């Protein structure tokens, strides 16, 4: 079954769960200061820069909870030894094609790219890899977590198949559709 959202699509194997979400932007607090600011201190105009949220794709052999963190916190803790969690996290077209996001195209995942300390939080037994890249003027991070580092030869191909199935609509097309990415 193909899952589509925000110009990103992925082929989801039977039995896997997937979600493509874009959290609501924090419209209630553009300055970040809000009612906590003592009286008499006006926000700097520069503080009115607004935060943005962009699409995040989660695919996993386990059900993905609604409260999952963008990089899988709340989900990767419960992975079994044969489980896989894949996150495709978008950063914004303004960051695409340069610096950290200079590489082009979805990376091909290989077991050698995975390590036990490649997560925001080290969890014993887990293994992860992280790649920054751009496709069609859109900047992404592909973050993949395996339930077991010792089982990576068996599980990485399953994650790699997920990554190979990604289809991404270019930024220019999305902008023409009126969707900010």
């Amino acid at each position, binding site marked *: 079954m193909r899952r589509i959202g925000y110009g990103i699509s992925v082929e989801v194997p039977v039995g896997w769960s997937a979600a493509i979400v874009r*959290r609501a*932007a*924090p419209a209630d*607090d553009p300055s*970040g*200061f*809000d009612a*906590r*600011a*003592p009286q008499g*201190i006006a926000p*700097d105009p*520069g*503080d009115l*820069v*607004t*935060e*943005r*949220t*962009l699409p995040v794709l989660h695919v996993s052999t386990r059900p993905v909870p609604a*409260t999952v*963190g*963008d*990089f899988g*916190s*709340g989900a990767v803790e419960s992975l079994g030894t044969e489980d896989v969690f894949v996150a495709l*996290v*978008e*950063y*914004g077209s*303004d*960051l695409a094609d*340069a*610096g*950290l*996001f*200079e590489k082009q195209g979805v990376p091909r995942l290989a077991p050698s*790219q995975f*390590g036990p*300390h*490649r*997560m*925001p*939080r*080290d*969890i*014993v037994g887990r293994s*992860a*890899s*992280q*790649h*920054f890249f751009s496709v069609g003027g859109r900047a992404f*991070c592909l973050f993949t977590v395996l339930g077991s580092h010792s089982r990576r030869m068996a599980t990485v191909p399953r994650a790699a198949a997920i990554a190979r199935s990604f289809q991404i609509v270019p930024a220019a097309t999305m902008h023409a559709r009126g969707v900010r990415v």
Partner: protein
Amino acid sequence: MSTGRTDPSEALAEVVERPTGLVKLIDRLSRRGGVSRRGLLVGAAVAGSALATDPKAYALMPQTAYATICGPGNTASSGWTIFCATVNKGVNGCPPGSFTAGWWKAADSSWCGGGYRYIVDCNAKCTKCSTGCADHICDSKCWNCSCTKGSTATCDQRVNCCNAFRYGQCNTQVKCSGGVHCRVVSCVAPYKWDNCSTTSFRSDSTAEHSSPYLPAWGPMEQLYTAMGAQKSYLRASAGPIRSTVDGTAKYVNYTGGRIWWTSATGASAMSSFVLERYAAFGGPSRLGYPKGARTTGLTDGGWIQLFQNGAMVDSASTSTHSVHGYRWGMWRDSGRENGPLKYPVAEMEDLPDGWIQRFQTGCTVVSTTTPRCLVHNYAWLAWVAVGREKGPLGYPTSDRAGLTRGTTQPFQHGGLWGLASRPMFAVWGAVLEAWLAAGGAGGSYGFPTAHVVDNGDGTLTGAFENGAITA
């Protein structure tokens, strides 16, 4: 050559950080052996902070104070990264050899008044080599830090420089980095104070993670947040909330200044420069605590910061000075920098039988036998010209008063008189007696046109509009 005077900064430190009874107790206990002074002190501080920040949880729940302060996942086995404040001398900023590499936010954090808390990863730089950068993280042997567990001297025992991960919204011009050295926190989004993208990621599970070296939420953090946190001149916090020796005030040190709080004044910030001058001027014991932020945009590019007992003030034409006590009330009531005295040019100076504080165009002065007075403009010039309090006039006995055609100011042994908007002149001694007998300024001689001069033969001569008197 020793002057015998204490360094002003040390003097302030002595005022606010002199060992308390608790510290003395800890010293005694630590000297008995078994536990380090640091360990005892941190433990005591943590317990105190726990009571201050979450007393209900600390008192009612079966948990340690450490858990209350440092939050969940505070051990190395949790896998989370340590806070920079814990490993960077208390400073909530990236240590040397690391840089802001990405951020996320956590909702409903008590450390930000129930709002969003922003956690920023400081990643190590690849300073030792550049191998392994195919996936944007160099080999760990290249990192500018080494993987360690947090010290057991603090409750923040999370791992230091171990996790090879990058959130990736900050300093994206850096293509390859080391792992996460430590974490910085703020209640203000990092794209407002560092080179970070506004792209927001979220992980609420870290909302209550913390360190005993970070200031808890309260009036001081509220002010710091309102000022823009790290974007403000205060920059990064450099330790937790501390109390003064006498318990009347609390404060938080920042790399660019300090925030004070008392129940009487609320929270007020001051820059490092003002803090240094504040210490030099006597600190809390003389000026009291600040009553608000520094106000800029005064006449002649000046600024002022008000304190309980006075003010610190500066302008483009003068250096920084304090005005406190009676002098403050006199200067304030006279119109401050817009009054006849303008800005102070010196601190209060002790005199053998009184004191004086000089301003750009006058002074405030008092002696043991005369009241507090202002002397300004032509009166100030005239008084200085005849030797001030050491001259024939002595100290002023009243402020300047108006006359029909001019002004006058009385002194112990004479007075100053001048036509409106014209120089004033000193009249004293036998000339004064003769002149007053003739009706003074309103009499036949009129106003003086020069100071009385001593002829050196036991007589004085005074020049007036309509003649001279020698007596």
